[in-house]
Structure formats: structure tokens, C-alpha cells
């Protein structure tokens, strides 16, 4: 069973002047579950793109069971037995489940007619094997994120993949969904499938994988055995330095007029009767599973979606924002969940992105380049955004630095209430610590922060109080210090006696 399955030999690739990968060599035993970890910009995505046949290496080769794997296209990679499960959904929402699984490689009968019955039968088999409660004819758009992800797994299996590559598959899954995915993957391993798992979440890496390869700055660092390595060792190898200490916030929440008061807020069919207040200098964590109404709550607070009932007060003054612009003038700022879709304009330079909300809501029309350059540079320095200059577009930066731009453009508006939706989603360990410190720093300076996060340890480490939502209702508010993960998770998942 064991033996070398997948081998990376001196794989290198540059994009312009950027060396994304230089001389990466390691091997993955056949039937193994192997993790590849590293900060954003470490070269994981490039490695996966080469494996998937999306880009070709400048130098070096990948071998599968000894044979050189030279895929010129994703289709060839699939034919060679490489099955990819991507972080973002690469699905056709307008097609059925079966249509998605066989997209591009449909089974046919004579004269090229589609063999729908055969594809449906095969799909039914795969759905059963992966425990997805859907039929072959279910439209893809009706599936949850987790099930859509499993359809990608099913697609890989439909083509008899020998290597299953999972790229950050758990970012938008709930714990139960992660459990399900891992059960499925573990079962697949028993049938001899090699698993390559790329993730930022070390606990998941530890659960699933036997060996862990660390990349840093496009280079191979080392491969660790799970049994003999601690998570801290991995983090050290990833960042190349000691992880900053997780200091608890020394300053307790200030008292006085709440910066934000929310009373009986409702939006039909989304959330109901939500009330809370946030003091100046306080971090309120909002925790809940996907579908609990957290993101929608923040978007409604920010004037992006209409409310059906309730009132909002900022610094003691009633606020009725029906647009982001009005919310900004009331002192609110929202760092949205999806920085690619909602956070950044990729056609504009970083400078313009950093000043956009300030300028768009200032009411002045004339652009003062000099002043903007200074303001943008100040934000860039304060947030330690790693970029050659502010004239490049955000796509040149890593996910963590992109996220810092989004946070920076909102801090530039000098808000009194900062709403953060999944502020560390998809960023690397180093950037995560930096963003945590940033939130603490702004809170210490008197800003009220409302942070929605699916990362429970993060919520408990940062928040002074944690508001737990389930199915659109507030299920409890617990103090951050002293609350346990179990306690919060219980509130988020099922009814318990109030504690």
C-alpha cells in the first residue's frame, strides 16, 4: 500500500518578477493524508495550480506513481487522476447535481447523445457514498455550501481520482459539516486515495493528516510527522519566527453612553428582535453557525438591507440609515465578509481603495492627490501593509494584506463603531495575529467593535462579551472571559436551560 505516490521534484514557477515557487521538492506516500500549510503567499496556491494543470512549472516536475505528470489543462489533470476540491465554489448553479458532476466529460451514447440515465445512476451511487441528501436532478443552487463541496468530491470520484486535493475546503463550513467531510475523506483513504489537504486551520490538519509539509515564501521548509510535532512548531516553521503571545486584553470595557444601542431589531424571515449594546472600547463578539443571521444583522446595521422593526442608536443619537453612506456619517464602518466581492476594487490602486469610503462620503468632489497619498500612506504604515508601493492594485498582495487594506480603508473614516464580519477569514497565521492586535488596539483607543466570526477560539480570545445567535434569534450573551467553547457552541446549536 505504501510507497511513493505523489512526488514534487524541484518545482519552480515565477510570475513576472515574483518567484512564487522555488525548487520545492517533497513526496507524499500513496494512500497517505498529507497536509500542505503555509502563510498566504507561501506558494500553496501555485503548487496546487500546477498540480491541477492551470499553470505549468518553469522548472521541475511532478510524478504520480513514478510517471511524470505533465498536465497542460485541468481536464488532463483530471484524466491523470488528480481530483481538485476548491475553496470557492466552482459549480454551475444553473445545472443539476448530475450535470455538475459530469460537466465537460458527459457520458454519451451513440451519435454523441447524452446518456442521462447512466449519469443519473452513477450520481445516485456517489451521493449515497458521500451521504449527500440530494437527487441527481436537484438544481445545484439549492445545495448548501457543504453539500456543494461534496459534489466536487463526487466529481473527482466519478473520474476515478487517485489523488484528492482539498484546498481550504472548510472555510465556510460549520463544525458538523466539517465532521461529515472528514468522515467521507477518511473513508476514501481506506480505498487507497491519496489526500492532499491545504488549510490554515491547524486543528483540522491535525485531525485529518499524518504528515504536514510547510512552505514559506515559495520554498519548502520541512515535512513533519504529526505524532512528534506540536502545533506551535508548525506555526514557527510557517512564520519563521516565534508566534506573538495571545495576551488577554488588560483594559476592561469602559462604561458610559453606549456607542451602539440596538433595540428589537428585526428583518422579516432573517433575524428577529435582536437587542444589545456595545460600550466604547468594548469588543462584542457575535457567534453563530452559518444561517444564524449574523452577516445579515451587520448588513442591516450598516444600512445595506432594510429593517422591518426596531431602532438603532449610535452614541445616544437615533440612526436610520438606508445606505452605507448614511451609516458612515453616523460613525459606523463595516469590514465585510467577502473581501474579494465586497471589499476591494481590483481595478483601482491600493491608495484609492484606502481612501474610497472617506472620499465617497466626505461630500467634497475635488480629489486632493497629495493629501490622499499622505492619508493612505499613514494607514498603510499603521497597519503594516506589505506592498512595494500604493500604486499597485490589490491583486498583487496576499490575502492577509488585502484584508488589512479593507480594515484600513474603514479605520480611515474614523468610525466610532467598527463592524467586522469574519475579519480573519482566509488569512494566514501571521496576518491573523496582526489583525487581532489591531482590533485590540482600536478598542483600547475607545472604538466599539462588533465582530462576527465562525472561529470560536478567536471570538473567545478577543471579545469582552459574546452574543450567540441561532436561527435569527439572540440565544444568549456571555462574558468572553471564562466562557468555554462548549457553552457557546451549545447556545449556538440547540436549546439549553439559560445559564
Amino acid at each position, binding site marked *: 500500500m505504501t510507497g511513493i505516490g505523489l512526488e514534487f521534484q524541484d518545482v519552480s514557477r515565477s510570475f*513576472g518578477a515574483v518567484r512564487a515557487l522555488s525548487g520545492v521538492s517533497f513526496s507524499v506516500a500513496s494512500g497517505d493524508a498529507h497536509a500542505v500549510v503555509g502563510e498566504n503567499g507561501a506558494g500553496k496556491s501555485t503548487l496546487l495550480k500546477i498540480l491541477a494543470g492551470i499553470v505549468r512549472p518553469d522548472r521541475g516536475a511532478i510524478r504520480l506513481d513514478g510517471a511524470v505528470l505533465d498536465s497542460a489543462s485541468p481536464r488532463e489533470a483530471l484524466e491523470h487522476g488528480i481530483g481538485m476540491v476548491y475553496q470557492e465554489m466552482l459549480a454551475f448553479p444553473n445545472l443539476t447535481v448530475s450535470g455538475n458532476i459530469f460537466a465537460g466529460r458527459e457520458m454519451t451514447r451513440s451519435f454523441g447523445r447524452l446518456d442521462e440515465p447512466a449519469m443519473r445512476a452513477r450520481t445516485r451511487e456517489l451521493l449515497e457514498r458521500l451521504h449527500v441528501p440530494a437527487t441527481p436532478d436537484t438544481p445545484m443552487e439549492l445545495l448548501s455550501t457543504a453539500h456543494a463541496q461534496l459534489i466536487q468530491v463526487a466529481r473527482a470520484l466519478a473520474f476515478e481520482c487517485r489523488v484528492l486535493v482539498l484546498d481550504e475546503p472548510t472555510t465556510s463550513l460549520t463544525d458538523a459539516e466539517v465532521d461529515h467531510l472528514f468522515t467521507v475523506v477518511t473513508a476514501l483513504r481506506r480505498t487507497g486515495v491519496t489526500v492532499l489537504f491545504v488549510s490554515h486551520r491547524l486543528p483540522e490538519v491535525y485531525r485529518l493528516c499524518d504528515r504536514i509539509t510547510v512552505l514559506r515564501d515559495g520554498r519548502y521548509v520541512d515535512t513533519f510527522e504529526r505524532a512528534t510535532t506540536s502545533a506551535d512548531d508548525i506555526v514557527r516553521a510557517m512564520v519563521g519566527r516565534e508566534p506573538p503571545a495571545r495576551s488577554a486584553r488588560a483594559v476592561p470595557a469602559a462604561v458610559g453612553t453606549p456607542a451602539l444601542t440596538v433595540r428589537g431589531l428585526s428583518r422579516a424571515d432573517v433575524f428577529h428582535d435582536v437587542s444589545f449594546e456595545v460600550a466604547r472600547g468594548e469588543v462584542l463578539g457575535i457567534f453563530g453557525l452559518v444561517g444564524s443571521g449574523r452577516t445579515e444583522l451587520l448588513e442591516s446595521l*450598516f444600512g*445595506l438591507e432594510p429593517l422591518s422593526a426596531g431602532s438603532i442608536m449610535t452614541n445616544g443619537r437615533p440612526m436610520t440609515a438606508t*445606505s*452605507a*453612506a448614511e*451609516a*458612515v456619517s453616523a460613525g459606523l464602518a*463595516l469590514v*465585510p465578509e467577502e473581501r474579494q*466581492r*465586497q*471589499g*476591494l*476594487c*481590483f*481595478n*483601482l*490602486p491600493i*491608495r*484609492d481603495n484606502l481612501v*474610497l*469610503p472617506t*472620499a*465617497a*462620503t*466626505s461630500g*467634497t*468632489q*475635488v*480629489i486632493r492627490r497629495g493629501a490622499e497619498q499622505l492619508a493612505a500612506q499613514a494607514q498603510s504604515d499603521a497597519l503594516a501593509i506589505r506592498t512595494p508601493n500604493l*500604486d499597485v492594485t490589490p491583486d498583487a498582495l496576499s490575502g492577509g494584506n488585502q484584508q488589512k487594506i479593507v480594515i484600513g*480603508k474603514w479605520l480611515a473614516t474614523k468610525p466610532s463603531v467598527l463592524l467586522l464580519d469574519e475579519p480573519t477569514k482566509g488569512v494566514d497565521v501571521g496576518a491573523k495575529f496582526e489583525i487581532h492586535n489591531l482590533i485590540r488596539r482600536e478598542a483600547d483607543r475607545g472604538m466599539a467593535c462588533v465582530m462576527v466570526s465562525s472561529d470560536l477560539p478567536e471570538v473567545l480570545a478577543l471579545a469582552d462579551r459574546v452574543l450567540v445567535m441561532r436561527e435569527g434569534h439572540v440565544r444568549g450573551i456571555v462574558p468572553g472571559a471564562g466562557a468555554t467553547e462548549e457553552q457557546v457552541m451549545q447556545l449556538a446549536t440547540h436549546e439549553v436551560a439559560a445559564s
Partner: protein
Amino acid sequence: MTSIWRAREFSTLVILVLEVVFFTWYLWPESGGHPFLNVGNAMLILKYSSIYGIAAIGAAIVIITGGIDLASGAVIGLTSVVIGYFFVEAGWGLFPSAMMGLLVGLSAGLVSSWLIVGLKLPPFIATLGVMGIWRGVGFIITEARFYDLSARLPRNWTVAGVPIDWVPPIVMVVLVVVFQIVMKQFQWGRSIFAVGGNEMAALFSGVRVGLVKTTAYVSAGLLAATSGVVLAIVQGQGKADLANGYELDIIASAVVGGASLSGGRGSVAGAVLGALIFGVLRNALPQIPGATFYDRVIVGLAVIVIVVMDQVMVRKAR
């Protein structure tokens, strides 16, 4: 940012210069005056290009927001009809008649943006429908006649001491300078780029996306109507089927000038240079013996070749 946009406009300018050099060489006469390279011909090119160029400024703005305006040709036609109606039928002065023409552009922009922003129709469909309506309104007003403005227009007249032939290019240059500055130095211009680059991020950033789009289509309508005023005076007539099919040449000018149909990229100066590139082609091709029947093909090929060349140059510049 400036360096990239400057590079894009620069590459369009290079193509224009190469084009002029080519035709100067190709049409070099055995003897006598140059048929292409002379002041009279240059004025002719500028005069007719400005009809496309002024509207192309608006087309570029709309395209940068990620939209499209198919109604520009119809707006030009209807504007000429409305001017003709007031100037010839109602006996108004030229200036108030022209103002009524501009009102056509304003209304056209408001209607298009209401369909796009208010009713959330795709810009292609909304402006396709609007295009048919404006064209039809022109026919209803004229009942297939045409208004002869030239009879009432003075001969060899001047506007503020400037010969009338010079006015269209001057209007175009003034407008492109104004809009170039507005697009680069004013928040409105940056909001146009932000909306085209990522509409949702712009919305989340507090940009008033609906207002930005509305003003973009209204600007495009007003600029197309300005072209209509120019065309009515240059041609001396108001006719419902004037400027038929111009919308595609206007959009092509903007695209050749660097505007990306997926939004977020482009320039108004580039659009005007694009209009000049087509103006030179349309002027020079008929002078080549035997090319008469090929000019549509050549213009079509030029769109494709120039956009490909532009992509190559931009890629190299990065």
C-alpha cells in the same frame, strides 16, 4: 494609476500617429498637393470625427461603469429632428432650438438610468429598447420628412469670431479636457471606476452607486445630444434616420481607446483618440483606388487589430 492610464492613452495615440504616417506615405502624390495631408482635409476629418468623438466620451463613461449605451445613435438622430422642428417648423432661434435638442439627451439618459437603476434591467436590454423608441419618436415627429436647416443657417457664419467649421472640433476638445479632468481629479470620476471595478465593494464603501450610474447615463445622453446638435448643423438637416448605426462606431471608438466592456477600465481621452482613428480611416480609405467596397471590412478588422495591439502593449507595460 496615472501611469497605467497614461500608457493606455499613449498606445492609442501611437496607433493614430502610425495610421496618419501610413496614409501620408501610401497616398503620396506623383505631383501636386497631397490629397490626404492638407489643412482642409484635416479639418474635414476633425469635423466629422467630433460627431463620433463627443458621443464616445459618454460611451466611455458608461462602459467604465460596467454598462453599455446602445441608444446614442438614436439620440443623435432624434436630437437633429427636435432641433429641426423648433428651428424650421416653429421658427425658433438656433440657440433655443439646440437647447431643446440637449433636452432630448437629458431625458434619454434619465429614462435609460431609470430602467437600469430603478427597474434593474440589464443595460444592454434597457438601452436596446430605448434605442428603438427614440428612433421611432423621430419618425413620428417627422412623418418621414426631413427638416432643412441649411436654408435658414447663415453662410460662412462665425461663432464668437471662430468659423463654424472649427466649432465641432473645439467643442470636442473642450469636452474631452473637462471630462478627462473630472474622471481623474474628481470623486465622481473615481466612483465611476469603483462601480465598474467592483459594484458591490463600491456600494459597501458608501459610494452612491445608483446616483453614479444615473449621472453616467445622463452624461452619455447629453453628450450624444451634443453630437446631434453638431451633426444637425454640419449636415444642415434634421432627419429621423440620421446617425443610423452610429452607436456601434461610438462604442467601438471607446473600446479602441482602451475601455474594457467588463467595466472598470478606460479613458475618455482614449475614446476621442479612438474616434479620430476611425475618422482618419473613413476619410483615407475612399481615396485609395479600388478600396471603396472594402472599407467596412477594413474598419471592422481595424477594431479587432487595434484592441489586440492595445492588449499586447498594456501587458508589456506591466
